[in-house]
Protein backbone atom coordinates (compact mmCIF):
# COMPACT_ATOMS: atom_id res chain seq x y z
CA UNK A 1 0.00 0.00 0.00
CA UNK A 2 2.70 2.37 1.02
CA UNK A 3 4.59 1.60 -2.16
CA UNK A 4 1.66 2.37 -4.40
CA UNK A 5 1.08 5.57 -2.50
CA UNK A 6 4.63 6.70 -3.04
CA UNK A 7 4.59 5.78 -6.70
CA UNK A 8 1.48 7.72 -7.47
CA UNK A 9 2.76 10.83 -5.80
CA UNK A 10 6.01 10.66 -7.73
CA UNK A 11 4.39 10.00 -11.08
CA UNK A 12 0.85 11.28 -11.09
CA UNK A 13 -1.00 8.63 -13.10
CA UNK A 14 0.59 9.49 -16.46
CA UNK A 15 3.03 6.68 -15.92
CA UNK A 16 0.57 4.20 -14.57
CA UNK A 17 0.63 0.81 -16.20
CA UNK A 18 -2.43 1.71 -18.21
CA UNK A 19 -1.10 4.86 -19.83
CA UNK A 20 2.62 4.19 -19.92
CA UNK A 21 2.65 2.33 -23.27
CA UNK A 22 0.83 5.20 -24.97
CA UNK A 23 3.33 7.64 -23.57
CA UNK A 24 6.21 5.43 -24.73
CA UNK A 25 5.05 5.22 -28.32
CA UNK A 26 3.90 8.83 -28.45
CA UNK A 27 7.26 10.20 -29.67
CA UNK A 28 7.01 8.12 -32.84
CA UNK A 29 3.57 9.44 -33.68
CA UNK A 30 4.43 13.01 -32.79
CA UNK A 31 7.54 12.92 -34.99
CA UNK A 32 5.69 11.14 -37.76
CA UNK A 33 2.84 13.65 -37.85
CA UNK A 34 5.19 16.63 -37.84
CA UNK A 35 8.02 15.41 -40.07
CA UNK A 36 6.35 12.69 -42.12
CA UNK A 37 2.62 13.06 -42.53
CA UNK A 38 2.42 16.83 -42.66
CA UNK A 39 5.14 17.29 -45.32
CA UNK A 40 3.63 14.47 -47.36
CA UNK A 41 0.18 16.05 -47.35
CA UNK A 42 1.73 19.43 -47.96
CA UNK A 43 3.64 17.96 -50.87
CA UNK A 44 0.34 16.83 -52.37
CA UNK A 45 -1.16 20.29 -51.90
CA UNK A 46 1.97 21.92 -53.28
CA UNK A 47 1.82 19.82 -56.42
CA UNK A 48 -1.27 21.79 -57.48
CA UNK A 49 0.29 25.18 -56.89
CA UNK A 50 2.17 27.59 -59.11
CA UNK A 51 4.84 29.07 -56.91
CA UNK A 52 8.20 30.74 -57.12
CA UNK A 53 9.68 30.29 -53.71
CA UNK A 54 11.43 33.66 -53.74
CA UNK A 55 8.03 35.42 -53.67
CA UNK A 56 7.12 34.01 -50.27
CA UNK A 57 4.36 31.70 -49.12
CA UNK A 58 1.60 34.19 -49.97
CA UNK A 59 2.42 34.07 -53.67
CA UNK A 60 1.20 30.50 -54.04
CA UNK A 61 -1.39 30.10 -56.74
CA UNK A 62 -3.69 27.21 -57.51
CA UNK A 63 -3.05 26.02 -61.02
CA UNK A 64 -4.87 22.71 -61.11
CA UNK A 65 -3.04 19.85 -62.73
CA UNK A 66 -0.72 22.07 -64.71
CA UNK A 67 2.38 20.87 -62.82
CA UNK A 68 1.43 17.33 -63.71
CA UNK A 69 0.73 18.03 -67.37
CA UNK A 70 3.92 20.08 -67.59
CA UNK A 71 5.96 17.22 -66.17
CA UNK A 72 4.30 14.54 -68.24
CA UNK A 73 4.89 16.52 -71.44
CA UNK A 74 8.44 17.55 -70.57
CA UNK A 75 10.95 15.61 -72.71
CA UNK A 76 13.50 15.96 -69.90
CA UNK A 77 11.20 14.05 -67.58
CA UNK A 78 10.76 11.22 -70.05
CA UNK A 79 14.46 11.09 -70.72
CA UNK A 80 15.10 10.91 -66.98
CA UNK A 81 12.44 8.23 -66.76
CA UNK A 82 14.01 6.16 -69.54
CA UNK A 83 17.44 6.57 -67.96
CA UNK A 84 16.09 5.42 -64.60
CA UNK A 85 14.40 2.44 -66.22
CA UNK A 86 17.43 1.34 -68.18
CA UNK A 87 19.61 1.70 -65.08
CA UNK A 88 16.99 -0.44 -63.36
CA UNK A 89 17.26 -3.10 -66.04
CA UNK A 90 21.05 -3.16 -65.59
CA UNK A 91 20.34 -3.35 -61.88
CA UNK A 92 18.41 -6.59 -62.19
CA UNK A 93 21.63 -8.33 -63.27
CA UNK A 94 22.56 -8.31 -59.62
CA UNK A 95 19.89 -10.90 -58.79
CA UNK A 96 21.20 -13.98 -60.64
CA UNK A 97 24.80 -13.16 -59.74
CA UNK A 98 24.07 -12.66 -56.06
CA UNK A 99 21.96 -15.84 -55.84
CA UNK A 100 24.75 -17.84 -57.46
CA UNK A 101 27.44 -16.30 -55.26
CA UNK A 102 25.36 -16.91 -52.14
CA UNK A 103 24.92 -20.55 -53.15
CA UNK A 104 28.65 -20.99 -53.88
CA UNK A 105 29.68 -19.39 -50.59
CA UNK A 106 27.17 -21.44 -48.67
CA UNK A 107 28.26 -24.69 -50.33
CA UNK A 108 32.01 -24.32 -50.16
CA UNK A 109 33.02 -22.08 -47.27
CA UNK A 110 32.67 -22.75 -43.59
CA UNK A 111 35.49 -21.23 -41.58
CA UNK A 112 35.96 -18.27 -43.93
CA UNK A 113 32.31 -17.78 -44.70
CA UNK A 114 31.85 -14.81 -42.45
CA UNK A 115 35.07 -13.20 -43.66
CA UNK A 116 33.95 -13.55 -47.28
CA UNK A 117 30.53 -12.09 -46.50
CA UNK A 118 32.09 -9.19 -44.59
CA UNK A 119 34.38 -8.36 -47.52
CA UNK A 120 31.50 -8.45 -49.99
CA UNK A 121 29.49 -6.30 -47.63
CA UNK A 122 32.07 -3.51 -47.29
CA UNK A 123 30.88 -1.49 -50.32
CA UNK A 124 27.39 -1.27 -48.84
CA UNK A 125 28.51 0.54 -45.68
CA UNK A 126 30.68 3.00 -47.60
CA UNK A 127 29.20 6.41 -48.31
CA UNK A 128 27.93 7.09 -51.81
CA UNK A 129 30.14 10.17 -51.97
CA UNK A 130 33.32 8.20 -51.30
CA UNK A 131 32.25 5.50 -53.73
CA UNK A 132 31.48 8.01 -56.48
CA UNK A 133 34.81 9.77 -55.97
CA UNK A 134 36.76 6.53 -56.27
CA UNK A 135 34.79 5.36 -59.28
CA UNK A 136 35.12 8.63 -61.14
CA UNK A 137 38.86 7.87 -61.09
CA UNK A 138 38.31 4.23 -62.03
CA UNK A 139 36.40 5.51 -65.08
CA UNK A 140 38.84 8.31 -65.93
CA UNK A 141 39.88 8.22 -69.56
CA UNK A 142 43.63 8.74 -69.37
CA UNK A 143 44.49 7.65 -65.84
CA UNK A 144 41.65 5.32 -65.01
CA UNK A 145 42.12 1.82 -63.66
CA UNK A 146 39.43 0.36 -65.91
CA UNK A 147 41.18 1.53 -69.07
CA UNK A 148 44.52 0.33 -67.68
CA UNK A 149 43.03 -3.14 -67.14
CA UNK A 150 41.51 -3.11 -70.62
CA UNK A 151 44.88 -2.11 -72.08
CA UNK A 152 46.43 -5.20 -70.47
CA UNK A 153 43.61 -7.46 -71.65
CA UNK A 154 44.05 -6.03 -75.12
CA UNK A 155 47.54 -7.59 -75.28
CA UNK A 156 46.14 -11.08 -74.79
CA UNK A 157 45.55 -12.86 -78.11
CA UNK A 158 41.90 -13.59 -79.00
CA UNK A 159 40.58 -11.78 -75.92
CA UNK A 160 42.19 -8.65 -77.33
CA UNK A 161 39.82 -8.75 -80.28
CA UNK A 162 36.75 -7.95 -78.19
CA UNK A 163 38.48 -5.38 -75.97
CA UNK A 164 38.56 -1.80 -77.27
CA UNK A 165 42.14 -0.77 -78.07
CA UNK A 166 41.51 2.94 -77.58
CA UNK A 167 41.05 4.29 -74.04
CA UNK A 168 37.32 4.74 -73.42
CA UNK A 169 36.01 8.03 -72.02
CA UNK A 170 33.52 6.23 -69.77
CA UNK A 171 31.85 9.24 -68.17
CA UNK A 172 32.47 11.53 -71.14
CA UNK A 173 30.34 9.73 -73.73
CA UNK A 174 26.58 9.36 -73.53
CA UNK A 175 26.73 5.70 -74.54
CA UNK A 176 28.98 4.62 -71.67
CA UNK A 177 27.63 6.77 -68.84
CA UNK A 178 24.88 4.34 -67.87
CA UNK A 179 27.00 1.18 -67.96
CA UNK A 180 29.50 3.01 -65.73
CA UNK A 181 26.84 4.00 -63.19
CA UNK A 182 25.45 0.47 -63.38
CA UNK A 183 28.86 -1.04 -62.64
CA UNK A 184 29.19 1.19 -59.58
CA UNK A 185 25.74 0.16 -58.35
CA UNK A 186 26.48 -3.49 -59.01
CA UNK A 187 29.67 -3.22 -56.98
CA UNK A 188 27.93 -1.42 -54.17
CA UNK A 189 24.86 -3.63 -53.76
CA UNK A 190 26.23 -7.08 -54.66
CA UNK A 191 27.21 -7.95 -51.09
CA UNK A 192 23.94 -6.72 -49.64
CA UNK A 193 21.98 -8.95 -52.02
CA UNK A 194 24.29 -11.92 -51.40
CA UNK A 195 23.67 -11.58 -47.68
CA UNK A 196 19.90 -11.42 -48.06
CA UNK A 197 20.02 -14.54 -50.21
CA UNK A 198 22.45 -16.48 -48.06
CA UNK A 199 20.35 -15.78 -44.97
CA UNK A 200 17.44 -17.43 -46.77
CA UNK A 201 19.60 -20.29 -48.08
CA UNK A 202 20.78 -21.05 -44.56
CA UNK A 203 17.18 -21.35 -43.45
CA UNK A 204 16.51 -24.20 -45.91
CA UNK A 205 16.49 -27.48 -43.90
CA UNK A 206 19.59 -29.64 -44.53
CA UNK A 207 17.37 -32.75 -44.71
CA UNK A 208 16.02 -31.60 -48.06
CA UNK A 209 19.50 -31.64 -49.58
CA UNK A 210 20.35 -34.93 -47.91
CA UNK A 211 17.19 -36.57 -49.24
CA UNK A 212 17.93 -35.23 -52.71
CA UNK A 213 21.51 -36.49 -52.54
CA UNK A 214 20.26 -39.95 -51.57
CA UNK A 215 17.97 -39.85 -54.59
CA UNK A 216 21.05 -39.14 -56.67
CA UNK A 217 20.67 -35.41 -57.32
CA UNK A 218 23.97 -33.62 -57.97
CA UNK A 219 24.79 -30.12 -56.74
CA UNK A 220 23.47 -28.46 -59.87
CA UNK A 221 20.15 -30.27 -59.63
CA UNK A 222 19.95 -29.41 -55.94
CA UNK A 223 20.40 -25.75 -56.84
CA UNK A 224 17.67 -25.73 -59.49
CA UNK A 225 15.20 -27.98 -57.71
CA UNK A 226 15.62 -27.02 -54.06
CA UNK A 227 17.53 -23.80 -53.49
CA UNK A 228 16.04 -21.66 -56.23
CA UNK A 229 12.35 -22.55 -55.68
CA UNK A 230 12.71 -22.02 -51.93
CA UNK A 231 14.39 -18.68 -52.53
CA UNK A 232 11.31 -17.26 -54.26
CA UNK A 233 10.08 -15.18 -51.32
CA UNK A 234 13.54 -13.68 -50.82
CA UNK A 235 13.96 -13.09 -54.54
CA UNK A 236 10.64 -11.31 -54.51
CA UNK A 237 11.91 -9.18 -51.65
CA UNK A 238 15.25 -8.34 -53.25
CA UNK A 239 13.62 -7.53 -56.60
CA UNK A 240 11.15 -5.28 -54.78
CA UNK A 241 13.95 -3.54 -52.89
CA UNK A 242 15.92 -3.16 -56.12
CA UNK A 243 12.95 -1.58 -57.89
CA UNK A 244 12.27 0.83 -55.03
CA UNK A 245 15.94 1.73 -54.70
CA UNK A 246 16.55 2.09 -58.43
CA UNK A 247 13.50 4.26 -59.02
CA UNK A 248 14.67 6.83 -56.48
CA UNK A 249 18.31 6.63 -57.47
CA UNK A 250 19.99 9.95 -56.75
CA UNK A 251 23.32 10.03 -54.91
CA UNK A 252 25.51 8.01 -57.25
CA UNK A 253 24.52 9.49 -60.64
CA UNK A 254 24.33 12.99 -59.16
CA UNK A 255 27.85 12.89 -57.74
CA UNK A 256 29.24 11.05 -60.75
CA UNK A 257 27.63 13.13 -63.50
CA UNK A 258 26.15 16.22 -61.81
CA UNK A 259 23.11 17.21 -63.88
CA UNK A 260 23.36 14.07 -65.99
CA UNK A 261 26.63 14.38 -67.85
CA UNK A 262 27.00 14.07 -71.63
CA UNK A 263 23.63 13.82 -73.36
CA UNK A 264 22.08 13.90 -69.87
CA UNK A 265 22.47 10.12 -69.93
CA UNK A 266 22.95 10.08 -66.16
CA UNK A 267 19.90 12.22 -65.35
CA UNK A 268 17.53 10.18 -63.19
CA UNK A 269 14.00 11.09 -62.14
CA UNK A 270 15.17 11.80 -58.60
CA UNK A 271 17.89 14.10 -59.92
CA UNK A 272 15.35 15.84 -62.14
CA UNK A 273 13.13 16.26 -59.08
CA UNK A 274 15.99 17.69 -57.04
CA UNK A 275 17.04 20.09 -59.80
CA UNK A 276 13.47 21.26 -60.38
CA UNK A 277 12.88 21.91 -56.70
CA UNK A 278 16.21 23.26 -55.59
CA UNK A 279 18.14 24.54 -58.61
CA UNK A 280 15.34 25.79 -60.84
CA UNK A 281 13.22 26.97 -57.91
CA UNK A 282 9.90 25.34 -58.77
CA UNK A 283 8.75 23.48 -55.65
CA UNK A 284 5.24 22.93 -57.03
CA UNK A 285 6.49 21.11 -60.10
CA UNK A 286 9.00 19.18 -57.98
CA UNK A 287 6.17 18.00 -55.74
CA UNK A 288 4.21 16.86 -58.80
CA UNK A 289 7.27 14.94 -60.04
CA UNK A 290 7.54 13.26 -56.65
CA UNK A 291 3.94 12.06 -56.80
CA UNK A 292 4.29 10.87 -60.38
CA UNK A 293 7.40 8.92 -59.37
CA UNK A 294 5.55 7.49 -56.40
CA UNK A 295 2.73 6.27 -58.64
CA UNK A 296 5.24 4.59 -60.97
CA UNK A 297 6.93 2.84 -58.04
CA UNK A 298 3.55 1.54 -56.91
CA UNK A 299 2.75 0.35 -60.45
CA UNK A 300 6.07 -1.46 -60.81
CA UNK A 301 5.65 -3.17 -57.48
CA UNK A 302 2.14 -4.28 -58.34
CA UNK A 303 3.52 -5.70 -61.60
CA UNK A 304 6.33 -7.43 -59.74
CA UNK A 305 3.85 -8.85 -57.27
CA UNK A 306 1.68 -10.08 -60.12
CA UNK A 307 4.62 -11.67 -61.98
CA UNK A 308 5.88 -13.54 -58.94
CA UNK A 309 2.43 -14.73 -57.93
CA UNK A 310 1.42 -15.66 -61.47
CA UNK A 311 4.56 -17.65 -62.06
CA UNK A 312 4.06 -19.46 -58.79
CA UNK A 313 0.56 -20.50 -59.76
CA UNK A 314 1.66 -21.72 -63.19
CA UNK A 315 4.22 -23.99 -61.60
CA UNK A 316 1.65 -25.22 -59.15
Amino acid at each position, binding site marked *: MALIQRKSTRFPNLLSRKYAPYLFIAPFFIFFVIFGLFPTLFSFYLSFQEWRQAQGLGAMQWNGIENYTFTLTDPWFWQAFRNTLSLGVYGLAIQPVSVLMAFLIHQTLSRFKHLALALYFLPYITST*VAVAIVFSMVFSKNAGLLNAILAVLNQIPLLGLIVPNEPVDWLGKAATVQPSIALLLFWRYLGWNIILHITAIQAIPKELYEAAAIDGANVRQQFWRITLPLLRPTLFLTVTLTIIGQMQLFDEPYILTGEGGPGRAGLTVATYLYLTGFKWGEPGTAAAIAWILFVFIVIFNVLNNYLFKGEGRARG
Partner: protein
Amino acid sequence: MQGAKAISRGTTRRTAGRRGVSLARLSAYLIIGLGAIFCLTPFYIMLVYGSHSAAEIFSFPPPLWFGDQFFINVENLLAVAPFWRNLWNSFYIAIMATAFTLFFCSLAGFAFAMYDFKGRETMFTVVLATLLIPGFLNLVPFYLMMQAIGWIDRPIALYLPGAASAFGIFLMRQFIGATVPRDLLEAARIDGASEFGLFWRIIIPLARPALGTLGLVTFIGAWNNYQGALVVMQSKETFTAQLALGALKGAFRTDWGALFAGTVITVVPLLIIFAFTSKQLIEGLTAGSVKG
Protein backbone atom coordinates in the same frame (compact mmCIF):
# COMPACT_ATOMS: atom_id res chain seq x y z
CA MET B 1 42.11 -40.16 -25.74
CA GLN B 2 45.01 -40.74 -28.06
CA GLY B 3 42.96 -43.26 -30.03
CA ALA B 4 40.00 -40.95 -30.39
CA LYS B 5 42.22 -38.24 -31.79
CA ALA B 6 43.77 -40.55 -34.32
CA ILE B 7 40.38 -41.75 -35.45
CA SER B 8 38.99 -38.25 -35.89
CA ARG B 9 42.12 -37.23 -37.80
CA GLY B 10 41.63 -40.23 -40.03
CA THR B 11 38.06 -39.27 -40.83
CA THR B 12 38.98 -35.70 -41.68
CA ARG B 13 41.60 -36.87 -44.09
CA ARG B 14 39.18 -39.24 -45.71
CA THR B 15 36.47 -36.61 -46.20
CA ALA B 16 39.02 -34.13 -47.48
CA GLY B 17 40.18 -36.67 -50.00
CA ARG B 18 36.69 -37.47 -51.18
CA ARG B 19 35.34 -34.01 -51.91
CA GLY B 20 38.00 -31.60 -50.68
CA VAL B 21 39.94 -30.71 -53.78
CA SER B 22 37.54 -31.37 -56.60
CA LEU B 23 37.78 -29.17 -59.65
CA ALA B 24 34.33 -27.75 -59.00
CA ARG B 25 35.35 -26.74 -55.50
CA LEU B 26 38.52 -25.10 -56.73
CA SER B 27 36.68 -23.07 -59.33
CA ALA B 28 34.15 -22.04 -56.68
CA TYR B 29 37.01 -20.76 -54.51
CA LEU B 30 38.41 -18.96 -57.53
CA ILE B 31 35.10 -17.23 -58.28
CA ILE B 32 34.59 -16.24 -54.65
CA GLY B 33 38.16 -14.96 -54.49
CA LEU B 34 37.85 -12.92 -57.68
CA GLY B 35 34.59 -11.47 -56.39
CA ALA B 36 36.31 -10.45 -53.17
CA ILE B 37 39.09 -8.76 -55.13
CA PHE B 38 36.46 -6.96 -57.20
CA CYS B 39 34.85 -5.70 -53.98
CA LEU B 40 38.13 -4.64 -52.36
CA THR B 41 39.93 -3.01 -55.29
CA PRO B 42 38.19 0.38 -55.02
CA PHE B 43 39.20 0.58 -51.35
CA TYR B 44 42.76 -0.19 -52.28
CA ILE B 45 42.71 2.48 -54.99
CA MET B 46 41.31 4.96 -52.50
CA LEU B 47 44.10 4.29 -50.01
CA VAL B 48 46.80 4.38 -52.68
CA TYR B 49 45.57 7.55 -54.38
CA GLY B 50 45.12 9.28 -51.04
CA SER B 51 48.86 9.04 -50.59
CA HIS B 52 49.76 10.47 -54.01
CA SER B 53 49.70 13.97 -55.43
CA ALA B 54 47.20 14.83 -58.15
CA ALA B 55 49.96 14.83 -60.75
CA GLU B 56 50.99 11.31 -59.77
CA ILE B 57 47.39 10.09 -59.82
CA PHE B 58 46.96 11.32 -63.35
CA SER B 59 50.23 9.93 -64.65
CA PHE B 60 50.26 6.81 -66.79
CA PRO B 61 50.34 4.08 -65.67
CA PRO B 62 48.45 5.12 -62.51
CA PRO B 63 50.23 4.44 -59.20
CA LEU B 64 49.56 1.00 -57.75
CA TRP B 65 51.53 1.30 -54.54
CA PHE B 66 51.37 3.74 -51.63
CA GLY B 67 53.10 7.12 -51.90
CA ASP B 68 54.19 9.61 -49.26
CA GLN B 69 51.94 12.57 -50.02
CA PHE B 70 49.09 11.81 -47.64
CA PHE B 71 49.83 14.56 -45.10
CA ILE B 72 50.54 17.10 -47.82
CA ASN B 73 47.21 16.16 -49.38
CA VAL B 74 45.49 16.71 -46.04
CA GLU B 75 47.10 20.15 -45.79
CA ASN B 76 45.89 21.00 -49.29
CA LEU B 77 42.45 19.80 -48.35
CA LEU B 78 42.38 22.02 -45.29
CA ALA B 79 43.37 24.97 -47.46
CA VAL B 80 40.21 24.68 -49.55
CA ALA B 81 37.68 23.37 -47.00
CA PRO B 82 37.24 23.55 -43.21
CA PHE B 83 37.47 19.78 -43.24
CA TRP B 84 38.02 19.12 -39.53
CA ARG B 85 34.94 21.19 -38.86
CA ASN B 86 33.02 19.20 -41.48
CA LEU B 87 34.18 15.95 -39.91
CA TRP B 88 33.09 17.16 -36.50
CA ASN B 89 29.66 18.08 -37.92
CA SER B 90 29.30 14.57 -39.33
CA PHE B 91 30.40 13.02 -36.06
CA TYR B 92 28.12 15.21 -33.96
CA ILE B 93 25.09 14.51 -36.17
CA ALA B 94 25.79 10.77 -36.22
CA ILE B 95 26.21 10.60 -32.42
CA MET B 96 23.08 12.63 -31.73
CA ALA B 97 21.07 10.62 -34.26
CA THR B 98 22.25 7.42 -32.62
CA ALA B 99 21.46 8.57 -29.07
CA PHE B 100 17.96 9.80 -29.92
CA THR B 101 17.16 6.81 -32.09
CA LEU B 102 18.22 4.33 -29.42
CA PHE B 103 16.14 6.07 -26.79
CA PHE B 104 12.91 6.54 -28.75
CA CYS B 105 13.02 3.21 -30.56
CA SER B 106 13.75 1.09 -27.51
CA LEU B 107 11.07 2.92 -25.54
CA ALA B 108 8.44 2.32 -28.23
CA GLY B 109 9.70 -1.21 -28.93
CA PHE B 110 9.38 -1.95 -25.22
CA ALA B 111 5.78 -0.71 -25.18
CA PHE B 112 4.84 -2.77 -28.24
CA ALA B 113 6.53 -5.92 -26.91
CA MET B 114 5.63 -5.89 -23.24
CA TYR B 115 2.27 -4.19 -22.75
CA ASP B 116 -1.24 -5.24 -23.68
CA PHE B 117 -3.11 -2.10 -24.57
CA LYS B 118 -6.01 -1.08 -26.69
CA GLY B 119 -5.06 -0.44 -30.32
CA ARG B 120 -1.64 -2.05 -30.05
CA GLU B 121 -1.87 -4.08 -33.25
CA THR B 122 -3.34 -1.22 -35.25
CA MET B 123 -0.70 1.20 -34.09
CA PHE B 124 2.10 -1.23 -34.83
CA THR B 125 0.72 -1.70 -38.33
CA VAL B 126 0.70 2.06 -38.77
CA VAL B 127 4.34 2.20 -37.63
CA LEU B 128 5.32 -0.37 -40.24
CA ALA B 129 3.19 1.27 -42.92
CA THR B 130 5.16 4.51 -42.58
CA LEU B 131 8.14 2.61 -43.99
CA LEU B 132 6.33 2.62 -47.32
CA ILE B 133 6.41 6.40 -47.67
CA PRO B 134 9.51 7.12 -49.74
CA GLY B 135 11.74 9.95 -48.61
CA PHE B 136 11.70 11.86 -51.89
CA LEU B 137 7.96 12.45 -51.56
CA ASN B 138 8.43 15.09 -48.91
CA LEU B 139 11.88 16.32 -49.82
CA VAL B 140 10.68 19.75 -50.91
CA PRO B 141 8.15 20.34 -48.10
CA PHE B 142 10.68 19.09 -45.57
CA TYR B 143 13.10 21.72 -46.77
CA LEU B 144 10.40 24.41 -46.61
CA MET B 145 9.55 23.33 -43.07
CA MET B 146 13.16 23.45 -41.97
CA GLN B 147 13.35 26.90 -43.43
CA ALA B 148 10.15 27.99 -41.66
CA ILE B 149 11.33 26.83 -38.25
CA GLY B 150 14.87 28.08 -38.77
CA TRP B 151 16.62 24.71 -38.88
CA ILE B 152 18.52 25.33 -42.11
CA ASP B 153 22.23 24.88 -41.39
CA ARG B 154 21.39 23.38 -37.98
CA PRO B 155 22.44 19.80 -37.22
CA ILE B 156 19.15 19.16 -35.40
CA ALA B 157 17.39 19.10 -38.79
CA LEU B 158 19.38 16.00 -39.66
CA TYR B 159 19.23 14.01 -36.44
CA LEU B 160 15.87 14.71 -34.83
CA PRO B 161 13.13 14.21 -37.48
CA GLY B 162 14.11 10.61 -38.20
CA ALA B 163 14.96 9.68 -34.63
CA ALA B 164 11.88 7.56 -33.87
CA SER B 165 12.40 5.30 -36.86
CA ALA B 166 9.95 2.54 -37.73
CA PHE B 167 12.80 0.16 -38.54
CA GLY B 168 14.33 0.73 -35.12
CA ILE B 169 11.03 0.23 -33.32
CA PHE B 170 10.47 -3.00 -35.23
CA LEU B 171 13.97 -4.26 -34.42
CA MET B 172 13.67 -3.43 -30.72
CA ARG B 173 10.19 -4.90 -30.42
CA GLN B 174 11.35 -8.20 -31.93
CA PHE B 175 14.36 -8.43 -29.67
CA ILE B 176 12.67 -7.40 -26.43
CA GLY B 177 9.69 -9.64 -27.14
CA ALA B 178 11.93 -12.62 -27.75
CA THR B 179 14.37 -12.19 -24.87
CA VAL B 180 12.75 -10.47 -21.90
CA PRO B 181 10.44 -12.64 -19.77
CA ARG B 182 7.29 -10.81 -18.70
CA ASP B 183 7.52 -12.35 -15.22
CA LEU B 184 10.67 -10.38 -14.65
CA LEU B 185 8.76 -7.15 -15.15
CA GLU B 186 5.95 -8.33 -12.85
CA ALA B 187 8.47 -9.14 -10.16
CA ALA B 188 10.05 -5.71 -10.50
CA ARG B 189 6.61 -4.07 -10.33
CA ILE B 190 5.88 -5.88 -7.06
CA ASP B 191 9.18 -4.54 -5.77
CA GLY B 192 7.87 -1.07 -6.52
CA ALA B 193 9.54 -0.19 -9.79
CA SER B 194 7.86 2.50 -11.86
CA GLU B 195 7.00 1.84 -15.51
CA PHE B 196 9.84 4.01 -16.73
CA GLY B 197 12.07 2.33 -14.13
CA LEU B 198 11.32 -1.01 -15.75
CA PHE B 199 12.48 0.39 -19.05
CA TRP B 200 15.59 2.04 -17.71
CA ARG B 201 16.75 -0.58 -15.21
CA ILE B 202 15.64 -3.83 -16.86
CA ILE B 203 14.95 -3.40 -20.56
CA ILE B 204 17.95 -1.24 -21.45
CA PRO B 205 20.55 -3.58 -19.89
CA LEU B 206 18.92 -6.70 -21.34
CA ALA B 207 18.47 -5.24 -24.82
CA ARG B 208 22.11 -4.26 -25.16
CA PRO B 209 22.86 -6.50 -28.18
CA ALA B 210 19.95 -5.08 -30.17
CA LEU B 211 20.83 -1.57 -29.06
CA GLY B 212 24.35 -2.13 -30.32
CA THR B 213 23.09 -3.26 -33.71
CA LEU B 214 20.59 -0.44 -34.06
CA GLY B 215 23.23 2.04 -32.91
CA LEU B 216 25.66 0.87 -35.57
CA VAL B 217 23.08 0.96 -38.33
CA THR B 218 21.98 4.44 -37.30
CA PHE B 219 25.49 5.79 -36.90
CA ILE B 220 26.61 4.56 -40.31
CA GLY B 221 23.43 5.77 -41.99
CA ALA B 222 23.76 9.24 -40.49
CA TRP B 223 27.49 9.40 -41.24
CA ASN B 224 26.90 8.53 -44.88
CA ASN B 225 23.74 10.60 -45.40
CA TYR B 226 24.09 12.73 -48.50
CA GLN B 227 20.77 13.83 -49.98
CA GLY B 228 19.27 14.99 -46.69
CA ALA B 229 22.37 16.98 -45.82
CA LEU B 230 22.55 18.39 -49.33
CA VAL B 231 19.11 19.92 -48.91
CA VAL B 232 19.52 21.30 -45.40
CA MET B 233 23.17 22.27 -44.98
CA GLN B 234 24.11 25.19 -47.15
CA SER B 235 27.28 26.84 -45.92
CA LYS B 236 30.81 25.50 -46.03
CA GLU B 237 31.02 25.70 -42.25
CA THR B 238 27.97 23.55 -41.61
CA PHE B 239 28.66 21.02 -44.38
CA THR B 240 29.08 17.44 -43.28
CA ALA B 241 32.21 15.63 -44.43
CA GLN B 242 30.23 13.97 -47.24
CA LEU B 243 28.93 17.33 -48.48
CA ALA B 244 32.38 18.88 -48.31
CA LEU B 245 33.82 16.06 -50.43
CA GLY B 246 30.89 16.17 -52.85
CA ALA B 247 31.27 19.92 -53.28
CA LEU B 248 35.01 19.59 -53.75
CA LYS B 249 34.54 16.96 -56.43
CA GLY B 250 32.07 19.16 -58.29
CA ALA B 251 34.33 22.21 -58.02
CA PHE B 252 35.84 23.73 -61.14
CA ARG B 253 39.37 22.72 -60.27
CA THR B 254 39.62 19.65 -58.14
CA ASP B 255 42.79 18.63 -56.32
CA TRP B 256 42.31 14.89 -56.63
CA GLY B 257 45.06 14.07 -54.17
CA ALA B 258 43.37 16.18 -51.48
CA LEU B 259 39.98 14.76 -52.42
CA PHE B 260 41.21 11.19 -52.01
CA ALA B 261 42.92 12.00 -48.72
CA GLY B 262 39.59 13.39 -47.46
CA THR B 263 37.80 10.29 -48.69
CA VAL B 264 40.26 8.09 -46.81
CA ILE B 265 39.63 10.08 -43.63
CA THR B 266 35.85 9.62 -43.87
CA VAL B 267 35.91 5.95 -44.87
CA VAL B 268 38.66 4.45 -42.69
CA PRO B 269 36.90 5.00 -39.32
CA LEU B 270 33.90 3.09 -40.63
CA LEU B 271 36.12 0.28 -41.89
CA ILE B 272 37.69 -0.01 -38.44
CA ILE B 273 34.29 -0.07 -36.72
CA PHE B 274 33.11 -2.63 -39.25
CA ALA B 275 36.11 -4.88 -38.65
CA PHE B 276 34.99 -5.34 -35.04
CA THR B 277 31.25 -5.41 -35.48
CA SER B 278 30.58 -6.88 -38.90
CA LYS B 279 28.66 -9.89 -37.64
CA GLN B 280 26.29 -7.89 -35.46
CA LEU B 281 25.84 -5.25 -38.13
CA ILE B 282 25.04 -7.66 -40.94
CA GLU B 283 22.57 -9.54 -38.77
CA GLY B 284 20.90 -6.30 -37.75
CA LEU B 285 20.60 -4.94 -41.25
CA THR B 286 19.04 -8.10 -42.57
CA ALA B 287 16.78 -8.66 -39.56
CA GLY B 288 14.19 -6.16 -40.69
CA SER B 289 13.97 -7.39 -44.24
CA VAL B 290 14.21 -11.14 -43.84
CA LYS B 291 12.35 -11.92 -40.66
CA GLY B 292 9.70 -9.32 -41.39
